[in-house]
């Protein structure tokens, strides 16, 4: 069945200090998680621009994961607080425009939470698998407007 052939594509935008380190920890602890996630490292969740997520979908992502330090633990003291506001607003907008909530997951994963990272990735991939490929977005691809 085609469902098996389709490999969900999840792009994860993570901060360098907490979540990236947390993912490293998952590795050093040899925890196993789903292979369909690709991590892009940034200094801080505060650096993550909503445009990244739009672009990720345009590039064929079926799901996006955004993760950084827990509130209060930001390496840059307030980066994730600002990011939190940004995501609260942005996720509501995406929801309003009809993008299923399960396609964009926001999380806090600290450098000590390797296990949380592993579970998180598995959950996100599972949810996206349930939704299937993000064909709705793919359909926007058409360049023919009228003919």
């Amino acid at each position: 069945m085609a469902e098996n052939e389709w490999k969900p594509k999840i792009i994860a935008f993570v901060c360098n200090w907490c979540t990236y380190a947390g993912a490293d920890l998952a590795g050093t602890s040899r925890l196993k998680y789903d292979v369909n996630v690709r991590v892009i490292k940034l200094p801080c969740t505060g650096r993550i621009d909503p445009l990244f997520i739009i672009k990720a979908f345009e590039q064929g992502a079926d799901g996006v994961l955004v993760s950084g330090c827990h509130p209060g633990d930001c390496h840059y003291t307030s980066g994730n607080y600002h990011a939190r506001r940004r995501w609260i607003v942005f996720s509501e907008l995406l929801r309003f425009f009809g993008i299923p909530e399960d396609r964009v997951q926001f999380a806090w994963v600290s450098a000590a939470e390797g296990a949380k990272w592993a579970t998180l990735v598995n959950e996100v991939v599972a949810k996206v698998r349930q939704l299937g490929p993000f064909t709705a977005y793919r359909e926007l691809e058409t360049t023919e407007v009228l003919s």
Partner: protein
Amino acid sequence: MARVGVFICHCGENIARTVDSAAVADAAKRMAGVVYAVDYKYMCSDPGQQMIKDAIAKHRLTGVVVAACSPRMHETTFRRASAEAGLNPYLCEMSNIREHCSWVHEDKQAATEKAIDLVRAMVEKVKKNEELQPIRVPVTRRALVIGGGIAGIQTALDIANGGHEVLLVEKTPSIGGHMAQLSETFPTLDCSQCILTPRMVEVGQHPRIKLYVYSEVESVDGFIGNFEVKIRQKATSVDPKLCNGCGACREACPQKKIPSDFEAGLGTRTAIYSPFPQAVPNKPVIDRENCLRFRVARKKGIPIEECTACGKCYEACPIEPRKAIDFSQTDQVVTEKVGAIVVATGFDLYPTDAYGEYGHGKHPDIISGLQFERLASASGPTSGEIRRPSDGTIPKSVVFIQCVGSRDNAKGIPYCSKICCMYTAKHTMLYKHKVHDGQAYVFYMDIRAGGKNYDEFVRRAIEEDGAVYLRGRVSRIFRRNGRLAVLGADTLSGRKVEIEADMVVLATAMQAQLHTDKLAQTLGISYDQFEFLSEAHPKLRPVETNTAGVLLAGACQAPKDIPEAVAQGSAAASKVLGIFSSDELEREPIIASVNENICSGCLACEAVCPYGAIEEKEIKDRDGNVVKVVANVNPGVCQGCGLCVATCRANCIDLAGFSDEQVYAEIKAL
């Protein structure tokens, strides 16, 4: 045209077991812009690094991607290797195919595909990388310490002894702070002044410490290594160069009834005064509020020069020919350049007026802990004898109440003042040692005696010196035939208690020094709702603030006892010495920069920057007219978080190392 070299590490079996490194190398060879790709058992080994260096030379690489372990592990290794081969280190990137791939996946084919993706992403990114040069900021190796209490003194001495100049600014006429007011100190009961005054003298005489007493910091500009501070020296009306501190002026002053802050209101002082005998510097100042001549001048509305009232001090001054007394002296504002600033403004005591039920102020024999210190102090108003302020009799029974203000949400102070448990225990001992037949009672909520020899100390107060500890709050205190009836509850026995006391001592809460918020704003550092100054990170950067080059010491940050204040003073000093270790600061070039052509100057970036690294910049035309205002990043201050970049709607601010172009390339590659 990009010439990227890709180096795939097996990490022994660690990667190779689940990722087909050779296949990744082959795939890499087919990526646009890749001119060389190879896999090797241990890239981080010397031969591995040599392969990279050779390839850089042989294939004239413009970028290097090492697919191996986490960059947190070996990024520096490979960047150094690249640099040694003459490639800018920031043109070297790592793909994490171990922690993020081989170690967390089992299916070899899938893991290999993922590894290829991760390599492709980095290849695309590295093509957009730019050569970056470390940022160098010159450092003025000279420190400013604000506050002359024990924390400030310790900091100043450590920095000065470390070989650098220090400016120590104190707002009162003498350094010493609260510690100078204390009688003995817990848990050793050694005399506070005996251990403090030698340090004060050392400061006063230190060749590298410049003392600004009776002065306050007015403004601070600049950034780490390059601050410019304006210091206001209030007019002391005494020429410090001429005055020899003989004290004749004080003797002569007719204004003798002014309540003394140093004596916590239990003693008096003259209008021309120095706060206490061991003051450093030992030069008096004229308190212009209370000085007769100034009062008359104010009343008549004439300039002080024309006023002839009193002048007893002037006559008494033995200095010839020019007297040390100078009524016409005015405030001076001096500008100094410093490279680092340590804030040590200390604490204040919670005003007990808020506790009507405890009647502080209504009855002279209900006093604060600090007042008790003065009573117990050999240099105090009663030369160390415990006597009731009201009638000078010796109190036979004293009630000590802890947590007055502290841990009382109703009074708006949820936090614990930390030192009260200890000093109350100390008070009961001092009292017992001075009044052998006296009885001390202590009302407490909990006894918090964490610290070296602290709990032992409290136990001694109870077991050896017989202080009676009652767990509970006091509901009311009122006068009854010359004594004080203290009504309270003993929550352990569940009984109401009433104690006939001759004196009541309130362990009042510590709070931030008045106007700490103003100072914080001048310094551009943050503070909490109680106006205690905020550290950069509660665990890992307890001494730094968010503003690089501004550090904290002592109780201005949170309630602290003397050892802690001193320890933090030394910590702050060591940070300063670190900053001063070379005449240039070198910093990672991962910083933001503004495209001034398209910046519209809304300054949202300035609002969000956690470090105050962004300020307005005026763009002027040739005639000097301001054409527009844009944001400007101070490379010396920027820490490279990139918050401003994602905040900017027009994306006209970008972050080196994580630029829009680079992230975009990564997203496209995945």
